[in-house]
């Protein structure tokens, strides 16, 4: 047994990023009202899979995770086989990536979000008591988003709200604050997952040509969202709000936050509500999932990168199942110092997700 397997630690893990796959729009039909059901059928809306994770691209599902259908993560028992049986997690948080955020019609986005969240409850949470989920939030309309949070938050198995990295407007803007007020009120972290609503190019330069550019550009989107949330003063207004960057990559953060903090010193009068270094605010309010860990395999290099965080509290264990982020059997990347394993696997997730306090 090597030190980088979960079993080496005397505790059970909390997997903070697991993706259930919606088989097709037909799956959601029973969860739509008559009008929207007819719209989906009549307009022949077959799927909301976005080009952030095209079903056949290698990263969307590790080949050995795929079932005979050619896809992975289609139901609760299948996910349990990997996450609970093989990787020995005791709890997993489902972050459903389906193109709800890409829809332009605000009412359709709400109808689909409601259907998706209800499907998650019935087909996943009710089927396996070890599962928890994020509320998929239709940010196209802030009132709708708040209503959906209020509706779902009654169910304590929802432990987070979920938005995409790239939307229509930077997330720190005050127009979104009712969403954060609702999240804070219910003890729900703001989960930001890689992905785009494709309102704009995924880079600030314009559209890239290739999928690999889109995926690699996500960390730039995360940087800008982090800067927006900090500088607009979201954590001054909502001091109990936590933000989790999901599938964001990890190693970019210390360098970017250093840069942000450095420039803030000279122009802080522009945002006087930020009266301490952005570095401290990020350490207090931001968390990141550890898959993918964008670092070489050399454990010494990984350990040095992790040291740059100057905090043992920021990293959360995640397999990112079924995305193909790692080979072999151990989602915990080699090189993460053993002394941090328990923090990453259990303590940090428990401290981040208040609703997991079992």
């Amino acid at each position, binding site marked *: 047994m090597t030190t980088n397997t979960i079993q080496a630690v005397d505790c059970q893990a909390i997997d903070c990023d697991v993706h259930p796959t919606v088989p097709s729009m037909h799956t959601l039909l029973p969860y739509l009202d008559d009008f929207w059901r007819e719209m989906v059928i009549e307009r022949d809306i077959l799927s909301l899979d976005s080009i952030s994770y095209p079903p056949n691209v290698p990263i969307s599902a590790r080949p050995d995770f795929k079932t005979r259908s050619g896809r992975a993560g289609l139901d609760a028992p299948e996910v349990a086989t990997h996450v609970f049986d093989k990787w020995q997690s005791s709890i997993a948080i489902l972050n459903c990536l389906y193109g709800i955020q890409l829809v332009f019609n605000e009412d359709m986005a709400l109808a689909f979000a409601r259907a998706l969240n209800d499907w998650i409850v019935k087909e996943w949470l009710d089927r396996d008591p070890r599962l928890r989920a994020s509320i998929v939030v239709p940010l196209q309309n802030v009132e709708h988003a708040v209503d959906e949070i209020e509706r779902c938050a009654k169910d304590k198995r929802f432990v987070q709200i979920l938005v995409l990295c790239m939307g229509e407007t930077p997330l720190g803007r005050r127009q979104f604050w009712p969403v954060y007020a609702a999240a804070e009120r219910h003890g729900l972290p703001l989960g930001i997952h890689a992905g785009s609503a494709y309102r704009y190019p995924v880079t600030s330069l314009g559209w890239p040509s290739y999928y690999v550019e889109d995926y690699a550009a996500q960390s730039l989107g995360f940087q800008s969202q982090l800067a927006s949330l900090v500088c*607009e003063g*979201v954590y001054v*207004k909502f001091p109990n709000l936590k933000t989790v960057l999901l599938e964001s990559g990890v190693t970019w953060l210390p360098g970017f936050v250093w840069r942000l903090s450095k420039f803030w010193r*000279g122009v802080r009068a522009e945002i006087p509500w930020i009266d301490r270094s952005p570095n401290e605010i990020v350490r207090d309010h931001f968390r990141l999932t550890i898959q993918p860990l964008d670092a070489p395999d050399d454990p010494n290099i990984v350990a040095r990168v992790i040291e740059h965080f100057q905090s043992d509290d920021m990293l959360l264990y995640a397999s990112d199942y079924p995305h193909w982020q790692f080979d072999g059997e151990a989602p915990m990347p080699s090189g993460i110092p053993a002394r941090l394993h328990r923090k990453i696997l259990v303590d940090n997730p428990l401290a981040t997700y208040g609703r997991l306090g079992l």
Partner: protein
Amino acid sequence: MTKHIVAPLKEFPPDTRKLVEINGRQIAVFNVKGEFHALGNKCPHESGLLIHGQLVGLVESRMPGEYTYSRKGEMIKCPWHGWEFDLRTGRAQCDPARIRVRRYETAVVHGGDIDPDTPPKAAEVFAVRVEDDYVVVEV
């Protein structure tokens, strides 16, 4: 502590500043609305010269969107990277607990009160006149 003459008061009107060198150390002296403040001239960050900086007010906030503006002209902003220093304390607004520039006491003294045998050491040599006032800095 020794008092050093910076300038005769009438040659140092409000909203002007003077640079003096005392014991090899540069000190930036500011007249803000008739009140004198003296700070070490070098920014502790990268040694930008504060004498060339802009005097600004203190901007604070309790909540995003709220701006509390006070003490107009009592903060010196380093011309290089914009760090603000409080003229009254020398402390940097971005990290007041850890970063500051040396601050010196100032005073206005009558020429008649200056002992002709041990006159304040001046950066430049002044002929002290009993009927005039002088701005001094204590080093």
